[in-house]
């Protein structure tokens, strides 16, 4: 197979009719479908934006546009890291691929943490819930669906990251599972507790208070990070390499798509209200 060849053509697959790898074509077709999912959600939001019932939440009084602009910037920068990860694996540099994957995941977690903070803030401070206003209904379902996409993206990147450690000799399923668990726990704690807490601190909350009130999840997250560092010790040769560029690229397609969708959502849901 071509995987054993000295050079790999990353843009052409001689085994398919079109030269496009099957996996890539599958992702493209899925993204076309996903466009329609978001299209329906955005349409629902815009239709009700033009027909607000009495007592609907007033978006500009709810939004924290500075914070959302910041997290938007972070999400866009994550695409840069994703592109660097693809570039690294196309050059066969597994170490650099891992770094870039972790960076992409971390930026994704910052974005998600911003959303967790935002949702909590809107519900508790601005008293806009899923059910007490139509704006809340459309806003939370649309941005929540996008957030779920980002979270799934982080999970896929995590699986890809863990997979880069698969030993060439085979086996290691339980190691893979524990490693994956550590990655999932670390990412979960990062965006559910750590990042929202950091935002609270920037807005003036006390560090000591944050640490003491979230001691358990924070220590679990720290333990997961230590476990990740331990799992990442390079002991044997790995199976992952340049031939897997298509796998990283496929996840990359999804990641970039989710970013592009956010640009549309940020414009149509947030910026539009400030015109």
């Amino acid at each position: 197979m071509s995987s054993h060849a000295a050079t790999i053509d990353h843009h052409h697959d001689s085994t398919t009719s079109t030269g496009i790898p099957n996996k890539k074509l599958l992702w493209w077709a899925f993204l076309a479908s996903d466009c329609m999912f978001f299209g329906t959600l955005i349409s629902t939001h815009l239709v009700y934006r033009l027909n607000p019932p009495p007592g609907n939440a007033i978006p500009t009084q709810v939004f924290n546009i500075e914070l959302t602009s910041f997290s938007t910037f972070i999400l866009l920068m994550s695409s840069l890291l994703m592109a660097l990860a693809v570039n690294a694996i196309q050059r066969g540099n597994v170490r650099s691929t891992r770094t870039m994957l972790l960076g992409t995941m971390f930026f994704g977690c910052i974005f998600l943490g911003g959303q967790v903070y935002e949702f909590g803030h809107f519900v508790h401070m601005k008293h806009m819930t899923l059910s007490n206003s139509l704006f809340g209904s459309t806003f939370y379902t649309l941005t929540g669906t996008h957030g779920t996409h980002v979270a799934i993206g982080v999970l896929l990147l995590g699986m890809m990251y863990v997979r880069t450690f698969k030993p060439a000799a085979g086996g290691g399923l339980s190691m893979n599972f524990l490693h994956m668990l550590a990655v999932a726990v670390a990412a979960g704690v990062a965006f559910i507790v750590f990042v929202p807490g950091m935002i609270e601190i920037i807005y003036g909350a006390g560090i000591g208070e944050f640490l003491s009130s979230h001691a358990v999840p924070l220590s679990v997250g720290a333990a997961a990070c230590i476990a990740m560092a331990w799992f990442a010790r390079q002991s044997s040769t790995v199976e992952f390499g340049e031939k897997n560029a298509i796998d990283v690229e496929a996840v990359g397609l999804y990641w970039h798509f989710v970013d592009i969708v956010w640009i549309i959502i940020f414009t149509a849901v947030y910026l539009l209200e400030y015109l």
Partner: protein
Amino acid sequence: MAEALAKSEFTGTGHAPAKSFELFARPTAKTGLVGWLTTVDHKKIGMLYGGFAILFFLIGGLEALLIRTQLIVPNNRFISAQLYNELFTMHGTTMIFLAVMPLNAAFFNLLVPIQVGARDVAFPRLNAFSLWVWVAGATLLNVGWISHLVPSWNFGGAPDVGWFGYSPLTSKVFTPDLSTDFWVLGIQMLGLSSIVASLNFIVTIINMRAPGLTMMRLPVFTWMALVTSFLLILALPAIAIALVEVMFDRNFGTNFFEVSGGGQPILWQHLFWVFGHPEVYILILPPMGYVSEILPTFSRKPLFGYPIVIFSGVAIGFIGFGVWSHHMFTTGLGTVATAAFAIATMAIAVPTGVKIFNWIGTLWGGHIVTRVPMMFALGFIWMFMLGGFSGIMHAAAPADAQQQDSYFVIAHFHYVLIGGATFALLAAIHFWFPKFFGRMVPEFWGKVSFWLIFVGFNCTFFPMHFLGLNGMPRRTWIYDSNMGWNEGNLFATIGAYLLGLGIFTYFAVLVYSFFKGQKCGNDPWDARTLEWSIPSPPPEHNFAAIPQVHARDAWWYEKTHQEEIAKEKAANIKAEEAHGGIHIPDQSWYPIIAGMGLLFGTYNLAQLKHPVVMFGNQVLGSHAPLAIAGLSIVVLACYLWSLEGPGGYHIHLDADGNAKESGGYHH
């Protein structure tokens, strides 16, 4: 060329590495229960789709007969109004989602990989996953029937909100019981199944064609499968989101369609028909593909105007996204919108008419052989045209205002869905039965069933045009004797029994043929496409040699150029054997585990806020833990699935074509 040929069974991610992550050994049984549950073979998956679809087709038919029996005489009290609502809802839902769509899926599976000259679909395990998710959705939709048998399973009966589930009827205020929740999640699962399956077929058709098989040499059926797959992936998201919104309204207090909270029920109608109208082309385009295969075979001529038939199919798919509001002419869209949708609706009749003229052009001057599949295909042209004529009448918005929600509409869509889609499917089943079971269906009994179905169908639905124009509204449980509808309804019901008898005969003959039918060779109809070049039933690996395609009617070309083809085949077999043999992917447990996890999860998600009661005792305060458990099974199964790899083994053919397996992953 030989090198590329040897690789063309490539399954997507490369051959399995020497060792992959495996929690437990992969199943290897090829027969028996395990063989069927873990299969990734497109032919077996197609059989399973077909078997389930025919089962639900018969159930849906039974529901229709109960409806017709209720309407046989005025003021009838045969069944209750509530049961009647459940029956017409489930009749529509079953026939569309659980009979015609999966029957089409069965043929996609059985035929598409072979017609493109491949050994399987692009992602075989994903294909199995689609099937089991479909089974999960079908189960969820029908689970409410249990309430009628076991009252302690209090789901409120089967869904009863109509197949298009108009808001605000689906609101918790109007249907507080669980039947609507099961309907919402059942349809959601079927949508997921269709999207996943369609992605698979898009990749298969675009990427796995045999050498020489250009897009404009693809059989028309495969082309229609491609267009249908695109329609599915682009249309289903609209209803998926709309269903999520209904689910949120019912369970989490949102106001998408709740008028009291500012929601607008008309939005549901738009979102539903943005899906619902492409859906009717999803139902009819594959049948147009079947008849485009059958008519040339029995006219002994190539299809007339092949490129324009393909183009018309694509055009129908494209315009099909721009006509949804013709279902909503009476809702007050405004003059401009109504006019625009009326014109688009008339425009979509043009490519449809073009196809019909091409089929007639195919028949013209041909040596027509009236075997049973041909009879059904000819019936399709005639009956589908009648349905098309009443469809054009609906396109005129003022006329439609009179016909909306009347029996005229019932007559129209049964002419396109039975006279159209079902006739073509019955033709297709009859036509490809010898290929997949190796036995012929007796001609005489096939023709008897055709005439029973043809006469019964027209007796049932032709009078409905008049009933509708005389004002009989659809979804009528009971009517008074002085409405002038007595004769029409009596006639229609008698016709329905005749149609039922015809359908029974049709399938009884198939069962007989399965056991006792006359055995047949590769090519009993002297047909044109690649599936007829391989044994009946086809072997696991489909082709001994990946075919080299030289012409549109590839098998007709092969039959007239035997020397050239024999040389090519020998070279291709040699090249592939030198490359390690024919690669076949391994079976897998994970698709069915993920599918059943999804069933368990959604079954509990539907009744999320209700306490879990077992033997009269409350076990849990809500179904949330069970729903989470089910979805965790899905995640875990997908995780292990992603690690196990495609795996696989190789088949080696000896000089006589006998297969021998080797388990190695060597290349």
